[in-house]
């Protein structure tokens, strides 16, 4: 009998026609249109096949007809609650307030005007909604109808997340209607600046920047590429890609916090320039007698975290990390969703089961009162602090801060205040879709911490287990790098990456100006592309009217490297200075291949005809020792990027 089935199968395969090309294009376009229509913008009313009727009561009648009792109850309660919050004199105090919000409140009082006729929506498609009997599906339809009929959708438009829309979300969710769908747009935002330009040494001989030990950007890029898409250009921060990989730098001697390693090599993408690579290796203090840690896990349990690659992955990641802690370490857990709350009071790490229970009981739902969470976490950390211990808040989030302060600039100020209390902050990003990389960067950079993005359990292993000591124990604060180029030797230079870390020249010696911190064993690499004097690769012509003979100084020196850092907690900085001789050599490193790869992903302004294929060749040659396969993975990503860029 099974032969029969096989016959049938081959018959069926032969009979199955190819889908019609034109229809396919049409259908896919329809799907994408419906998709983008769904993503929050909701311009105008929802498309229906019914002709919209004018009149004050038709909307209400329609609403009453369509609503099922449960959905109706929730939705109408929500509206009343929103009204209450807005209109009552106490209402203002019920929600975190700021100037911007104040104005939107005023406007909202007149806003929901039911008497307006709904603008006639062009009915271009007949979108059959396949109904299931599940109550949530009914509610979805009902709530959308409600929004359309009462005209609320027009108020929420055109911006997907206006303050008002957020308040509505907030009100709905705080009423316990978690399964009420919230419009979720792709709200990813990335922190980046324009690619560093080429500087003429004669005009601006000094380049100053803060170090950066984050690795988040690399993981985001990996996540994008493995999903079959090139990452958004702004998601690419080259320094974070380079710093993702361990390199073979000389470890610092006895009591210095770190030593710089400098090398000069040929630029792979330009035969007439050179690469100046500065590597910094942080000291690795003896881990066995490290100071006790006070950790506050600040966990985002808002509704948006309710995806397998967010909260569940987060729980697993923290499980891994627990194994690395000592009995004298203490852990507290603070969660935030609609409001912030302490889930686990400070508990010694030895009480493993208590901590694991608290972790496992976390569930996601509600909006994201990030600021309230931060406040509570810092308060908890302050209460745990004892002399000689390291305090750190570990924030795990998908980056969506939609209640309270949510502007990266304002959060910066808030965090900068807290930084001075000596508590460090690490930010772990999870999930894609509404990853707010900009906010996460703002938090980590200003909170004396680092940002990592965790998309797989192996990334959690790298960040939270292998590099835990580095991530949790700072060995130097506010590390700044300043390079002064010798105009007699170098005519032009360009810093690759570090766009978001640029400092003003005068800020180098100003100890009040914040910069990045280095943890135990951390490595930081910065690469300059330099054009030697007289090289055909010079991009700028000499000036006709100014004297070009400004070059003075030793022709044996390429540049002068200055490093400033503070011992953890200290107020005054130390200075390390070394000249970089023209005789400095070195071998092309894997970092070069990654720098090239990053530049290609950002559009390759300076890489000429150098291609992904060249990057792959170079990376393969320089791969060297790769115990955990990080570099092999990077080469795989380059290959993916190569294929994807050809589409």
């Amino acid at each position: 009998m099974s032969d029969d089935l096989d016959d049938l199968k081959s018959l069926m395969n032969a009979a199955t026609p190819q889908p019609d090309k034109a229809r396919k294009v049409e259908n896919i376009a329809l799907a994408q249109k419906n998709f983008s229509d769904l993503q929050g913008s909701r311009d105008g009313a929802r498309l229906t096949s019914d002709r919209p009727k004018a009149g004050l009561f038709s909307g209400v009648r329609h609403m009453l007809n369509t609503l099922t009792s449960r959905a109706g109850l929730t939705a109408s309660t929500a509206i009343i609650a929103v009204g209450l919050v807005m209109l009552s004199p106490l209402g203002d105090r019920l929600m975190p307030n700021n100037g911007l919000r104040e104005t939107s409140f005023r406007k909202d009082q007149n806003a929901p005007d039911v008497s307006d006729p709904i603008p006639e929506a062009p009915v271009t498609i007949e979108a059959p909604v396949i109904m299931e009997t599940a109550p949530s599906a009914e509610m979805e339809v009902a709530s959308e109808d409600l929004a359309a009929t009462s005209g609320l959708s027009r108020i929420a438009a055109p911006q997907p997340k206006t303050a008002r829309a957020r308040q509505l979300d907030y009100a709905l969710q705080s009423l316990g209607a978690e399964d009420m769908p919230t419009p979720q747009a792709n709200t990813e935002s990335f922190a980046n600046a324009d690619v560093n330009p080429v500087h003429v040494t004669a005009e601006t001989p000094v380049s100053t920047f803060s170090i950066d030990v984050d690795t988040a950007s690399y993981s985001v890029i990996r996540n994008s590429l493995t999903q079959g898409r090139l990452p958004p250009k702004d998601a690419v921060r080259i320094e974070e890609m380079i710093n993702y990989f361990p390199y073979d730098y000389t470890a610092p001697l006895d009591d210095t916090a770190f030593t710089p390693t400098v090398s000069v090599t040929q630029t792979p993408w330009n035969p007439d320039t050179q690469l100046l690579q500065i590597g910094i290796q942080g000291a690795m203090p003896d881990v066995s007698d490290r100071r006790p840690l006070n950790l506050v896990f600040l966990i985002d349990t808002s509704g948006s975290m309710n995806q397998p690659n967010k909260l569940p992955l987060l729980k697993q990641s923290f499980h891994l990390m627990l194994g690395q802690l000592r009995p004298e370490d203490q852990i507290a857990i603070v969660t935030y969703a609609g409001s912030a709350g302490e889930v686990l009071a400070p508990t010694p790490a030895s009480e493993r089961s208590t901590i694991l229970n608290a972790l496992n009981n976390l569930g996601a739902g509600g909006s994201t009162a990030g600021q309230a969470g931060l406040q509570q976490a810092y308060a908890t950390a302050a209460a745990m602090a004892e002399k000689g211990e390291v305090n750190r808040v570990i924030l795990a989030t998908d980056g969506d801060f939609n209640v309270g302060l949510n502007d990266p600039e304002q959060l910066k100020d808030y965090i900068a205040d807290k930084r001075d209390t000596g508590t460090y902050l690490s930010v772990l990003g999870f999930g894609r879709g509404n990853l707010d990389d900009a906010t996460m960067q703002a938090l980590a950079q200003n909170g004396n911490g680092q940002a990592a993005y965790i998309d797989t359990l192996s990334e959690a292993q790298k960040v939270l287990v292998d590099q835990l000591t580095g991530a949790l124990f700072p060995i130097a604060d506010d590390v700044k790098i300043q390079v002064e180029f010798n105009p007699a030797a170098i005519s032009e230079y360009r810093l690759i990456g570090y766009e978001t870390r640029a400092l003003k020249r005068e800020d180098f010696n100003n100890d009040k100006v914040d910069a990045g911190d280095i943890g135990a064993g951390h490595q930081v690499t910065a690469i300059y592309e330099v054009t030697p004097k007289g090289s055909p690769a010079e991009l700028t012509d000499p000036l006709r009217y100014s004297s070009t003979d400004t070059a003075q100084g030793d022709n044996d020196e390429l540049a002068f490297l200055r490093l400033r850092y503070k011992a953890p907690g200290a107020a005054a900085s130390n200075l390390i200075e070394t000249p970089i001789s023209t005789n400095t050599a070195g071998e092309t490193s894997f970092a070069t291949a990654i720098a090239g790869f990053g530049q290609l992903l950002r559009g390759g302004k300076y890489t000429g005809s150098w291609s992904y294929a060249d990057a792959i060749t170079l990376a393969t040659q320089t791969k060297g020792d790769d115990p955990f396969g990080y570099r092999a993975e990077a080469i795989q990503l380059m290959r993916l990027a190569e294929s994807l860029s050809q589409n």
Partner: protein
Amino acid sequence: MQTDDDILALAAAGGDAGAFATLIERQYDRLFRLCFRLTGSQAEAEDLTQDICAALPAKLRGFRGEASFTTWAYRLCVNAAHDRRRRAATHAKAASGWGDWEVNRRAANAETEDAIDWLTHAMRALPDDLRDTLALILDDMTHAQAGEILNVSEGTISWRISKAKKHLATQRQEETQ
């Protein structure tokens, strides 16, 4: 290091337009193939795929990755096909009082004669539940997967398949006689 439809689907469920575009581009042919097997005619299959494309974005927001995306999408297809049949039946009853099967048959007759081979006949003659089951099994689904999609036990699937085989055997006999 895998580029996974499930991950794409989750990203799309979270609102990632790029992920959705990749996903639909990748899955279209496959969905169409199943639609053809469920309906037995190209025109019907194109329409059914359109229905699915139209509804997929809204449905996808409920995708939580509990089942694999393929299973989930196939379930969507089967449900959409049911929906279409139900609607077609209502239309047909209102129009002429003829049954669903007869309408389908006439429509098929109106199409080019030679497109109707033994297979299409055979598939159409099957009751809906058997046809759905067979369509899935012929699409390389295991009995367990088909069970998950149709929301019945694995045993039921095996039973349906043997029943469908009997149907087909009888039919073949009738034709050869």
